[in-house]
C-alpha cells in the first residue's frame, strides 16, 4: 500500500503563538485521557505534542529576565520520528520500530512497559500509562473509533496521526488509484490533527519524498535546523528558526 512516502513535518517557530490548539486537537483525535491538575503536578500528564515555553530577554538579573524586556519563545515538541531513533534499539520486545514510511511506530499490544524507550528519548516525547485511562460517561461519544485506547502499562506517543494517513492511502491510492500529495491530504482532512488545528500554519506536514510538497520545499529554508542535531538522531521534523524583528532588519 505504501508508495514510497516519507512523512515529515516542518515547524515554523516564527509563526507559533503558543495557543495550544495543536495540543487540544491531538488530545481529542488520539483518545488521550483528560489531564487534570493532579496529573500535571505529579508529572504524569500526556501531551503528545507540547508547547515548550522559554522566557528570553536582553537584560537579565541573576538569570531572570526583567519586564518589559521579556519575550516568550514557543517550541512545539512532538515525536521527531527519528531515522536513527534512540528509542528503537532499546525496546526488548520490538514494540517500537521504524516503518518504511519513515515513521517511528509504537505497537501497543506488544509493549510490556519497561520504559527504556522513554528514558532514551532525548526529546522526552514518550508517555507511559501509569493507570487505565477513564473518561466520564458523558465523554464517551467523543472518542475516536479509529484510535486504540491504551490500557495501563503501555507506552504511547505521537504517531503523525497514522490513522489519518492510512485512511488517506486507502481512499486516494487504494480506491481512487491516484497519487497522494499535499492538496489531496488537505482536501480530505487527512493532515494530522495538530496540523489541521494550527491557526498560523506553524505546523506543515507532508511527504518528504515528494519534491513538490510544502515540507520538502520548506525544509530547505535557510532558517532550517533540527533539534539536538549533535546527537545524530536524524529527525524527520525540521524546525525553522524564529527571527526577531530588530534582527530581521539586518537580514
Amino acid at each position: 500500500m505504501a508508495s514510497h512516502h516519507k512523512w515529515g513535518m516542518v515547524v515554523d517557530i516564527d509563526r507559533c503563538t503558543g495557543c495550544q490548539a495543536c495540543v487540544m486537537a491531538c488530545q481529542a483525535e488520539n483518545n488521550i485521557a483528560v489531564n487534570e491538575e493532579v496529573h500535571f503536578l505529579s508529572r504524569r500528564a500526556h501531551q503528545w505534542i507540547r508547547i515548550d515555553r522559554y522566557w528570553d530577554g536582553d537584560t537579565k538579573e541573576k538569570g531572570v529576565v526583567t519586564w518589559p524586556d521579556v519575550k516568550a519563545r514557543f517550541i512545539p515538541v512532538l515525536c521527531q520520528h527519528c531515522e536513527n531513533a534512540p528509542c528503537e534499539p532499546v525496546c526488548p520486545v520490538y514494540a517500537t520500530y521504524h516503518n518504511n514510511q519513515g515513521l517511528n511506530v509504537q505497537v501497543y499490544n506488544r509493549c510490556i512497559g519497561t520504559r527504556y524507550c522513554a528514558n532514551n528519548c532525548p526529546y522526552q516525547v514518550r508517555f507511559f500509562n501509569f493507570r487505565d485511562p477513564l473518561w466520564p460517561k458523558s465523554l464517551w461519544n467523543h472518542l475516536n473509533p479509529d484510535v486504540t485506547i491504551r490500557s495501563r502499562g503501555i507506552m504511547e506517543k505521537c504517531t503523525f496521526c497514522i490513522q489519518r494517513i492510512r485512511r488517506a492511502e486507502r481512499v486516494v491510492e487504494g480506491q481512487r488509484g491516484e497519487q497522494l500529495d499535499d492538496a489531496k491530504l488537505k482536501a480530505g482532512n487527512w493532515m494530522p490533527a495538530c496540523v489541521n488545528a494550527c491557526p498560523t500554519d506553524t505546523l506543515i506536514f507532508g511527504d518528504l519524498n515528494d519534491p513538490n510538497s510544502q515540507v520538502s520545499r520548506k525544509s530547505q529554508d535557510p532558517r532550517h535546523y533540527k533539534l539536538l542535531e549533535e546527537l545524530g538522531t536524524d529527525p524527520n521534523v525540521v524546525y525553522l528558526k524564529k527571527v526577531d524583528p530588530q534582527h530581521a532588519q539586518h537580514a
Partner: protein
Amino acid sequence: MQEAKVLSYRQINKDLLGNIFKSSNRYWLIVGFLTIIVLGAFAAAGYMINRGLWVTGLNRPIFWGFMITNFVFWIGISHAGVMLSAILRLSKAEWRRPATRAAEVLTIFSLMTAVTMPIIHTGRPWRTLYWAFPFDFQRGIWPDVRSALVWDPSAINTYLTSSIMFVFVALIPDLAVLRDRSTGLRRMIYTVLSMGWRGSPRQWKLQAIAGILLSALILPVFVSVHSIVSFDFSMTISVKAWHSTIFAPYFVIGAVLSGVSGVVTVMIFIRWLFNWEDYIRREHIDALGRLLIVIALAWFYFFALEFMFGIYGQEGDELATRHMQMFEPPWSWLFLTFIITAFFIPLGLWLFRDVRRSFLWMTITTLLVNVGMWLERFLIIVPGLARKQGFTGTWHTYAPSAVEITIIVGTFAMVLLLFLLFAKVFPLIPLFDIKEGQVLKDEIKIGRRRVPAVIRED
C-alpha cells in the same frame, strides 16, 4: 592462621551440621520475623501489579526509580560469591574456607531477588515473564537483541545457572555426610542429591577439577553480568550522566565492594546465630578487611573518573545533574551520606588492625558500605533522569511511595530469609573445605619461633 584450632572431624561435623537437625529458638524467631516482612512485600507488589504503576512515585521523566536501583544493588551483592569463591580458590588463599559457601549462596539468592525487580516494575509483568525469551518461532516475533534489556536476562541467567552448579558441586561431599547421618525422607532427599558420593580418590579428583574449572569459567561471567547491567544505562545517549564509557568496570568494582561487604556482614551474622566461633575467626575478617581496603580504593578511582569526566564534558544537562546531586537538598544530603558511608568512614576505619579484627566494627562498617552503595546506584539513576537534556520544562524530582519502600525492604528480608532456610537444609560452611584446611595446615620452625604454614599443591 595464628588462632586456628586443631579440630577433630567429629567436632567439625557436629558444629557445622547442628542447625540442620535442630535449630535454636533464636533461629526460628528470626525466620518468623523475616517471613512476615516478606509477606508484606508480596502484598505490596501484588497491589502494585493489580492497580498499576501509578501507586509508585514514578513520573515523567523519572521512569526508573527505587525498583531499578534495587535491581542493580542486588546484582551487585551477587558478585560476592564469585569474588571470594573463585578468585580466592584460584589464588589458594587459606582464609577463604569458611566464607565460600555463604558467599555463593548469598549470590544465588540475591540474583533471584534481583531478577524479580525488573519483572514487577514493568507495565505488564504478566507479559514480561515470557516475551523476553525467544520462543515464537512460528510467527517470527523475536525479542530485540539490540536491547540491553535482552542481554540482561541472558547474562543473569548464565550467572545464576553457573553459580548454582558451583554451589552444588561443592555441596556434594557435604550432602553425603548428611545422607549418612539422617533417616527417613531426609535421607532419601540427600541420597538423591549426593549422587552416590563415596569419597573415593577418583571422585575427589573429579570434584576438585570441576570446582577449579567452574571457578575459572565463572570469572568472565561474573565480570560480564554487571557490565551488561551497566550497559542498560551507558548505551543510552539521551541521559548524559549515564553515557559514560567507565560504567562497565565502575559497576563491577562497585558490585565487588558491596558484595564482599555483604558477605562479611552475613558471615558475622551466622557466626552469632549458629555459635561458629571456632570457624569464623578474627583472622578471617582481618583478611577480608584488608581485601576490602584494596577494593574500596579501586572503587574510588573509578568513581573519581566517572565523576570528573562527567564534569569534564561541560555539557549543560550533565552539569545540571551533578549540581542536583551535590547541591540541591535532599539530594545533596544523600550524596554526602553516600560518599561518607561508602568510602571515607569504612576505609578510614579499616586501616586499623583492631577495627579489622573486631566483629562489631566490621559489621558496622560493612553495613555502612552497603547503605552507601545503595545510595550510589540511586544517585546515578534518578538525578540522571531528572535533568535529561535541555528541555528544562520536563525536569522534575522523585520521591518513593510507601509501596516501593515496602517492596525494597521486603527484598532485603527475602534474601536473608532464603539464606537462613538454606541453612536449615544444607551446611553453610563447607565441611570438606574446613577438613582440607586442617590437613594442609602445619607448622615450621624458624629459629625459636613456630610459624604456621600451609602446603602448596602446585
